[in-house]
């Protein structure tokens, strides 16, 4: 289980990292926490000739409130998210989800940027970022650009990142006070990727759902935003008929692979259940 040989680079600024990625071309990969990339390299599913370690770039580690948004630097670890008062109070669904990622050792190393930029449909953060309406900042040879999470994911491990670009931060609009939220993740054991998972952020008014957003994890080639499912519950009291409509609408867009976690039919079935549970729990905590 020894990875193929590579040359190690440790730039001290984003500009230097971008320059290296451009110079070294396709055979270079940025390295964040390494807990997706290093296992892939050990299996020789990834054989980069160059690794550009982002750990030496200090300004990629931060959690700041910027007006009505929370900005999280790409190298912020899941452990740091869990330790953040800002996240716990403004984005409790992020805290809840980070706790369900892998195990303590992996959370000390695994980063938010790596989780969202890798394009792995099994990662938990992409579905959550779709649900929260997050934007990603990419820095490349031509400067910065911002892209919405829902425009970022194009296929499994295939994203809108262009050669030489690095995802440097995630910006999330703070949901309104009193919003309801839940991330329901079915997994075989702690540390596993989701068999199926659903994120819900909603607001209630007068006993009815006022706004709702639903994201799905590991139920297609990319994380999905289940817009029809969300529309099916808006204006309802989340009665059984509306919940059924929502789960059916969510299942209609699911296209999971069959793997050790179960055949596609099973994963769609439990995917619908995750949506229903997340909707119920989100509504229960909404004020």
């Amino acid at each position: 289980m020894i990875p193929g040989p590579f040359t190690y680079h440790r730039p001290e600024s984003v500009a230097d990292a971008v320059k290296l990625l451009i110079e070294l071309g396709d055979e270079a990969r940025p390295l964040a926490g390494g807990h997706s990339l290093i296992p892939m390299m050990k299996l020789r599913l990834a054989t980069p000739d160059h690794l550009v370690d982002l750990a030496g770039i200090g300004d990629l580690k931060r959690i700041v409130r910027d007006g009505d948004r929370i900005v999280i630097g790409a190298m912020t670890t899941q452990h740091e998210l869990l330790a953040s008062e800002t996240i716990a109070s403004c984005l409790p669904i992020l805290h809840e989800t980070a706790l369900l990622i892998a195990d303590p050792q992996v959370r000390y190393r695994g980063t938010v940027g790596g989780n969202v930029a890798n394009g792995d449909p099994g990662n938990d953060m992409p579905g959550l970022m779709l649900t929260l309406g997050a934007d990603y900042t990419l820095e490349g040879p031509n400067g910065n650009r911002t892209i919405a999470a829902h425009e970022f994911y194009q296929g499994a491990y295939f994203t809108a990142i262009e050669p030489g670009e690095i995802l440097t931060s995630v910006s999330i609009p703070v949901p309104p006070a009193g919003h309801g939220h839940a991330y329901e993740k079915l997994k075989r054991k702690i540390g596993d990727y989701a068999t199926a998972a659903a994120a819900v952020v909603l607001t209630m008014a007068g006993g009815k759902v006022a706004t709702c957003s639903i994201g799905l994890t590991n139920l297609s080639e990319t994380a999905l935003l289940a817009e029809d499912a969300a529309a099916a519950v808006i204006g309802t009291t989340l009665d059984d008929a509306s919940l059924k409509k929502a789960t059916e609408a969510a299942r209609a867009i699911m296209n999971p692979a069959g793997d050790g976690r179960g055949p596609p039919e099973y994963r769609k079935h439990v995917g619908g259940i995750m949506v229903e549970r997340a909707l119920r729990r989100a509504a229960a905590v909404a004020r």
Partner: protein
Amino acid sequence: MAQAKKTQISMTVNGQPVEGLVEPRTLLIHFIRENLQLTGSHIGCETTHCGACTIDMDGMSVKSCTVFAVQAEGAEITTIEGIANPDGTLSVLQEGFRQMHGLQCGFCTPGMITRAHRLLQENPNPSEEEIRFGIAGNLCRCTGYQNIVKAIQYAAAKINGTEFKEAAE
């Protein structure tokens, strides 16, 4: 690609400054076991699952099979060899594992103790649930975890100066 150039690295392991010349692809666990000859940290699954290779790196529990040695440049590392008291007697955690029979074959034990060491630094008085959640990245195929949890509770009680009471099973 041809053999990559070796890189000079230095770090502090169990309080001692160490250095070495490694290929960038050298995993930290191999550097610790082969270059430093500290073979207490074990290689179990090599796939980031089992936690047998857990070490403490800059105040974090880390699976050293999933870190390149070059990434640990300048780091402060503690392995199981650095857990005992300075006078060589067993630390309270090691004593807990001994008293509570927290091991059978012992293969997972270095990782378990190193992980529990950090857990108790962060949360000196954990509940049983917090202990189980906190060691979820360490697999034991012998004990069923019950005695490992007791061992950590024993250590927590000693650290807090309270009396350790075994919960009824």
